[in-house]
């Protein structure tokens, strides 16, 4: 069988996961080019929550969520720690009826797949799960013990290893400098090592770098950067006496990180027309830590005072800023582009860890068999051209 040669630009969760799914096909010859380290940039700053029901992804895409979750459970079962799973459970708080309805649907879907989940209106029970919470002004909360958060960097590295075992190649510390196109068709690419590679397909898995990557083939990739600003809090007393679950409000989410609490503004609360939230920036200039805006302090203080007053006096251990790559409808961009052979797997926003497995499964099928899927139609580049 004739080999198909595929070059993947970017070794974050998107590129590593796609590389793995492609490597499952006998006639795929895959190389992933990563300019730094695997899963070391935006992926490393991802919270890695893959919850059975929350507002990160609409219930319409339930199978995307489930496929991601179960892929990582399987990975973790094969080798403990390889997906960095911390099974803390999740508490999703309903502050209005619309959220409540979404949670209830999510619980029903989770139960149908064999997982536990319940919608709790007994405020004492909610306080048992999260003693530091305020139960005023809430309707109830969805709760499951079965999920938690994963580690995007570990997952990316595990996928990279599995891909290499299947014959794929990873090149770290190698930057793609040029994508070769002839008659509007992909020919290959060049790297900063001075090498030229021939490819049938080149896939952009560069997330927040996609504007720059797209420039190499003259493609305007319609993504914006939204700021993911996060703090690590050290709770008063330095150690919590209970297992802090993944905690989701429409405005922010929190999870434990060792004895600390990681807290971040939710990606759906970002406003693409607010220059404080969104813009076009250079992800290469992001510092490893720090970089958060002043308004974030006020925002979090107000939120925590009202919602989780028990941790409002936590110490601020560290903070970081990351850029999410978001199309205007907050859904990823997958599949074919006007340049033949140039494929996108980008724009996951804050949801790369959740969505990459299902998206990669379908993209691999598209590239290797030429077969599209309903998910790829939904998340196609075409939809943004309208």
């Amino acid at each position, binding site marked *: 069988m004739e080999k198909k040669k595929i070059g993947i630009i970017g070794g974050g969760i998107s590129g590593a996961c796609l590389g793995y799914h492609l490597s499952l096909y006998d006639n795929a010859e895959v190389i992933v080019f990563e300019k730094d380290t695997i899963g070391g940039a935006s992926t490393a700053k991802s919270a890695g929550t893959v919850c059975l029901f929350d507002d990160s992804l609409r219930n319409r895409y339930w199978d995307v969520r489930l496929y991601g979750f179960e892929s990582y459970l399987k990975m973790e079962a094969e080798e403990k720690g390889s997906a960095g799973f911390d099974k803390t459970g999740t508490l999703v708080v309903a502050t209005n009826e619309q959220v409540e309805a979404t949670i209830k649907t999510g619980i029903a879907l989770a139960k149908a797949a064999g997982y536990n989940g319940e919608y709790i209106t007994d405020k004492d029970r909610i306080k048992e799960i999260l003693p530091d919470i305020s139960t005023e002004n809430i309707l109830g909360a969805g709760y499951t013990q079965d999920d938690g958060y994963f580690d995007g960097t570990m997952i990316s590295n595990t996928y990279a290893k599995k891909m290499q075992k299947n014959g794929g190649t990873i090149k770290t510390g190698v930057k793609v400098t040029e994508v070769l196109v002839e008659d509007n068709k992909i020919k290959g690419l060049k790297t900063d090592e001075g090498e030229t590679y021939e490819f049938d397909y080149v896939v952009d898995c560069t997330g927040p770098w996609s504007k720059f990557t797209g420039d190499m083939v003259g493609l305007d990739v319609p993504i914006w950067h939204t700021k993911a600003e996060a703090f690590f809090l050290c709770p008063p007393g330095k150690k919590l006496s209970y297992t802090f679950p993944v905690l989701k409000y429409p405005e922010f989410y929190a999870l434990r990180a060792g004895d600390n609490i990681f807290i971040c503004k939710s990606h759906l609360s970002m406003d693409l027309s607010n220059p404080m939230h969104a813009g076009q920036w250079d992800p290469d200039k992001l510092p490893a830590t*720090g970089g958060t805006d002043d308004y974030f302090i006020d925002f979090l203080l107000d939120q925590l005072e009202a919602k989780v007053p028990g941790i409002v006096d936590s110490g601020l251990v560290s903070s970081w800023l990351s850029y999410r790559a978001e199309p205007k409808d907050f859904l990823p961009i997958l599949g074919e582009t006007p340049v033949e052979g140039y494929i996108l797997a980008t724009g996951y926003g804050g949801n790369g860890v959740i969505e990459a497995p299902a998206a990669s499964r379908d993209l691999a099928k598209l590239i290797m068999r030429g077969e599209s899927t309903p998910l790829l139609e939904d998340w196609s580049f075409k939809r943004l051209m309208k």
Partner: protein
Amino acid sequence: MNIAVLIKQVPVSNDVSVDPVTHALVRASSEGMINPSDLNAIEAALVLKEQTEGKVVVFTMGPPDAEKALRDAMALGCDESCLITDRVFGGADTIATAKVLAEGIKKYGEFDLIMGGALSADGATGQVGAMVAEYLDIPHVTEIQSVSYDAEEPDKVTIIKKFQGLDLTIKAALPALVSVNFGANEPRLATLRTKRAAKSKPLAAYTNAEMGMDPEKVGLPGSPTIVTDSFEPESDRKAEFLTGTPKELAEKLKELIETEKGKE
């Protein structure tokens, strides 16, 4: 006890390279933070303040954006701050830096104790503190573990300093200057509330209009030493691989560890 703490805003990352043509330093990020051992100095100062009453004033000399480091220090509990900033102070070596800091402290008011971190994460000279003490004509002890105050001996502080496997107890007559080692204590953390409160704490900005120093005696012109070149080290810190049997590897490892331990 009124305490002045001298801090420095250092880059979050030491990831710096050298432009091959201009030989200018290219910083990977412009993000700044309080120098790590300065946080230990602030912690020691706040503990003393809580014990003796008085105030802690934090000083820095640097570009206008060093205000961020001062606000961070005030979020930890420092009461006031003073930003010494002027183009004429730029390009200063340790001598010219210490001269201006000493002048700023004198202008601000009277202090019983002046503190700072032992070494900065970027320059790591460990010199400015002792130089400030000399300009102020007060005694100093550098690279200490702790400092305490006893009301029975109101004109002294007691210092613990590690030296060649010994714990030295040293008494210094006040006013004095001490520099605190990284890791000497566990610095407290700011909270969301103290961060917000720090926004309205007093911050004085001194330019040379206020300081009135001779521009020829500060900054680059007032520095006895100048940087004439910069270059990247030959090795890019890529590991040199050791090979051999486990025993040979262990012996090589032992030699490396012991050689490094033997230094200083």
